[in-house]
C-alpha cells in the first residue's frame, strides 16, 4: 500500500511538472490561485460537515442546501435595491459595509436554519437506528431546495460582478486579482475564529466533550442538547459565509448548487478525516487544487467534463482504503 501510494504521488507530481513545463510557471501560478479560492469556499462548507459528523456521527445531507440558501440570501441582499443595491464596479466605501452586513445576515440566517433542521428532523431520531436521521436529512435537503425554488424560482440567480477585478500584485506575469483575494480574506479570519472557539473557549470544550461521549458529557453537567444546537449554529454560519463568497465569486446560484457543492465539500471532509477540523481544511484545499489543475491545465488532463468523477473517485478510494482520512485517527468502526 505505501508503495502504491508513493507511486501515485510520483505520477501526479510528474503530471504537474510536465504541465508546468508545457504551460509556463506564471500560468500555473494563476491556476493555483483559482485552486486556493475554490478550496477556501469548500473549506467553509466542509467544516460544517465535519463539525456535525464529529458531534452526532450524522452526515448532514441538507448542509449543502443550507449553503445554497446562504448564497441566495446574501446574493439578494447585495443586489437588491432595498438592501445594499450594489452594481458592477461598486466603490470600496459601499462594498465593505455591504460585504460585512450581508455576511452577518447570511451567517445568522443559515445558522438558524441549520438549528431548526436539527430540532425538527434529527433530534427526535437521536436514539433511532442510524440510517433514520440520514434518510430524514435527504428529505430535508429536498425541502430546502424547494424552499429556494419557491422564493427564487428554478433559474440561475445571477449576481453581477460587484467585487473589484484589479490586481493585488503582478510579478513576472503572476497576477493575483482582488476578487480571489477577498474570498481568502474573508475565509481565513473565519477559520481562525472557529479554531479559537473550538480549542480555547468553554463552549468549544463542551463541544469536544459531547463529541467524545455524549452520556459522559451529560453527567459532567454539559447541556448536550444546547451544545449540539450550538454546533449546528456554527456549521450553518460557516455555510452562510461560504454561500456569500460563492455567490459573489462565481456570480450565479441555483436551487441545486448546494447539492453538487455539498457533495464535493463532503468529499473534502472525508479526505481530510471526517470529524477533524484541520483535516477538513486540508482536504478542501486539496480538492480545490485538484479541481483547478484538472480544469485549467491542458497537458493530458481529463478536463472539466470529468471533475465530478475525479472527486467522487477520490471519495470512494479514500473510504475504501483509508476511511480515517489523511489526518484522522483510526477508529474501530471507521472501516
Amino acid at each position, binding site marked *: 500500500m505505501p508503495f502504491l501510494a508513493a507511486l501515485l504521488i510520483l505520477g501526479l507530481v510528474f503530471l504537474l511538472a510536465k504541465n508546468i513545463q508545457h504551460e509556463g510557471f506564471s500560468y500555473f501560478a494563476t491556476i493555483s490561485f483559482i485552486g486556493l479560492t475554490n478550496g477556501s469556499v469548500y473549506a467553509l462548507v466542509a467544516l460544517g460537515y465535519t463539525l456535525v459528523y464529529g458531534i452526532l*456521527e*450524522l*452526515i448532514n445531507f441538507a448542509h449543502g442546501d443550507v449553503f445554497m440558501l446562504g448564497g441566495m440570501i446574501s446574493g439578494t441582499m447585495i443586489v437588491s435595491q432595498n438592501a445594499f443595491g450594489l452594481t458592477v464596479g461598486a466603490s470600496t466605501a459601499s462594498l465593505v459595509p455591504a460585504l460585512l452586513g450581508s455576511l452577518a445576515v447570511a451567517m445568522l440566517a443559515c445558522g438558524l436554519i441549520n438549528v431548526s433542521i436539527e*430540532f*425538527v*428532523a434529527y*433530534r*427526535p*431520531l*437521536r*436514539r*433511532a*437506528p*442510524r*440510517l*433514520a436521521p*440520514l*434518510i*430524514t436529512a*435527504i*428529505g*430535508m*435537503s*429536498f*425541502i430546502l*431546495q*424547494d*424552499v429556494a*425554488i*419557491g422564493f427564487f424560482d*428554478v433559474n440561475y440567480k445571477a449576481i453581477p460582478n460587484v467585487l473589484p477585478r484589479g490586481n493585488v500584485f503582478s510579478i513576472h506575469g503572476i497576477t493575483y486579482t482582488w476578487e480571489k483575494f477577498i474570498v481568502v480574506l474573508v475565509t481565513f479570519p473565519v477559520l481562525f475564529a472557529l479554531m479559537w472557539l473550538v480549542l480555547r473557549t468553554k463552549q468549544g470544550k463542551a463541544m469536544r466533550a459531547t463529541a467524545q461521549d455524549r*452520556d459522559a458529557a*451529560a*453527567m459532567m453537567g454539559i*447541556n*448536550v*442538547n*444546547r451544545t449540539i444546537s450550538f454546533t449546528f449554529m456554527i456549521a450553518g454560519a460557516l455555510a452562510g459565509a461560504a454561500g456569500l463568497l460563492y455567490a459573489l465569486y462565481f456570480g450565479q446560484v441555483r436551487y441545486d448548487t448546494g*447539492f453538487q457543492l455539498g*457533495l464535493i465539500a*463532503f*468529499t473534502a471532509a*472525508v479526505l481530510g478525516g471526517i470529524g477533524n477540523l484541520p483535516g477538513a481544511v486540508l482536504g478542501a484545499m486539496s480538492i480545490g487544487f485538484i479541481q483547478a489543475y484538472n480544469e485549467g491545465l491542458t497537458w493530458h488532463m481529463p478536463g472539466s*467534463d*470529468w471533475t*465530478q*468523477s475525479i472527486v*467522487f*473517485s477520490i*471519495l*470512494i478510494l479514500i*473510504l*475504501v482504503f483509508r*476511511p480515517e482520512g489523511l489526518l484522522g485517527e483510526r477508529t474501530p*468502526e471507521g*472501516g
Partner: protein
Amino acid sequence: MRRRLRERLSSAWWAALAAVGLPHERWNGFSSGLRRAVKALLWVGVFLILVALFGVWKTSALAVAAVILLLVAPRWSHASIRGRRVGTWVAPLAVIALAASYPYYVNHMPEVPVFGPFPQLSTLVVMTIFTMMALGLNFVVGYAGLLDLGYVAFYAMGAYMAGWFASSQFAKQNVNLGAVGLYPGATGFHFSIWLVLPMAGIATAVVGILIGLPTLRLRGDYLAIVTLGFGEILPQIARNGDHLFGTGFNLTNGTGGITPIDGPGFGNWLDQHLHLPANFLTAGNLDSVFLWTGLALVLITVFCSARLRDSRIGRAWIAIREDETAAAAMGVPLMRTKTWAYATGAFFGGVAGAYYASYKSGAFPDDFFFQISVFILCMVILGGMGNIWGVIFGACFLTYLDREGLSNIGTQFNNQFGTHLDVPKYEFGIFGIIIVVVMLFRPEGLIPSSRRAAELHEAAHDEPLYDHEVAGA
C-alpha cells in the same frame, strides 16, 4: 413526541367507544372478527363523510368504499378448501385482475373527488416499471438494511444495455437476434427484447457486484455516500461517452442519448400460433400490451421477492439487517450475503431499466438523475421497508403522484381556492416532506412488515440518559 401522539389517539378512541356505550371491557369481549368489522365500518364511514364533505357523490366512491370493506373487514384470508389456505390468494388475484383489465374499464370510470380522473394507461405502464425497481431496491434497503442512494445507476445501466443491444448505436456491427419491426438494412446490434431483459439484468448485477465488493465493508452511512458517488460518476461517463479518452469511439452518444430503441414483440411465429403480438409498436393497443408485459415482469419480481425472502439467503439478509455482529457470530458470511443482496437488487433494477428504455424508446444521461434514486427510496420508505405489499403500494402511489396526481390535485386546489400554485414544481419538496414525516412518525411505513416495525421501535424502549424533551424546550 411520537409516543405522546399515539397515546392521545388511543385514549380518544376509547373515549369515543365509551360515548357510544361500549366501555373497554365489553369491546375486548367481542370476537376479533366483530372488532375488525366495526373498525372497517368506521373507516368506510370516515371515507363517506370525506366524500360528502367534498360534495361529490358518485358510483366510484361507493366502489372504493366496497373495496376498502373487502380489504379490511372479513377474515376471508383464512378461508381454506380441504386444508389448503386458498384465502391468501384472494387479495393478490383480485389486484392482478383489476390491474390486467384496467384498459377495458379506465375510460368508463368517473372522476374521483380530490384526485380527479383515473390514471391513464401509460401511467399504469410506468407504475409497473417503478414497482419493479422499488421491489429491487427493497432487496437492498428493506431486506438487507443497506442504504443505497445510487440505485438509479442500475436502472440507467439497464436502459443503456437496451440502448446498446437493441438499436443502431454500433453501426459497424450487424447482428440481428430475433428483433422485430426493423427497417431493411438496419445495422447495429438488434437483440430481441426477451434476450435484452435478462442480459441487462445480469450485466447490472455484475456491475452491482463490482461496486459492492470494495464498498460493502463500509458502515451504513458511508456506504450510502459511496453508492451516491457511483451514482454520480456513471452519468458523467454516459454524458461524456461519445469521446471517451480522446478516442473517437462513441459509446453512449453523449447528451443526446441512444434513440430510437427497437420496440418489443414476439415475432410472427408466436403471433400465428399463440396470438401474442408480433410487434408491440404496431399492435394497435400499444399501452395495453406494455401494461400486460409489465405486469408479468412485476409478478416474476414479486415471486422472486417472496421466495428469496423466505429462503436461506433471505433469512441471512434479515439477520444482517437486525444485527450485523450477531449475524456474523452465527456464521452468516457478511460480505457474500450483502453482495448477493446488492446483485439481486441490481438485477431487477437493470431489467426495469431495459424495459423502460424500450417503452420510451431511448436511453438518456438524464435517466441517471439522483432525484430518481430518492424517488424510488421514497416509495420503499412510504410503503413499508421489507413489505412487498407496502412497496408495491408506495411505488404505484408515488408514480401516480409524479405523473398525474400532483398536477390534478394542484389544478383542483387552484380552482377551489383561486390560487396559482404550480404544484408539480414542488414535487421533490413534497417527497421530502413525505420522507421526513414518515421517518419521524411511522418509520415502518404505511403497510409495515411486523418484523421491521418491531425493530424500528425497539430503540425507543431503552430510556435515554438525559431527557431531550425537557432540555430541548
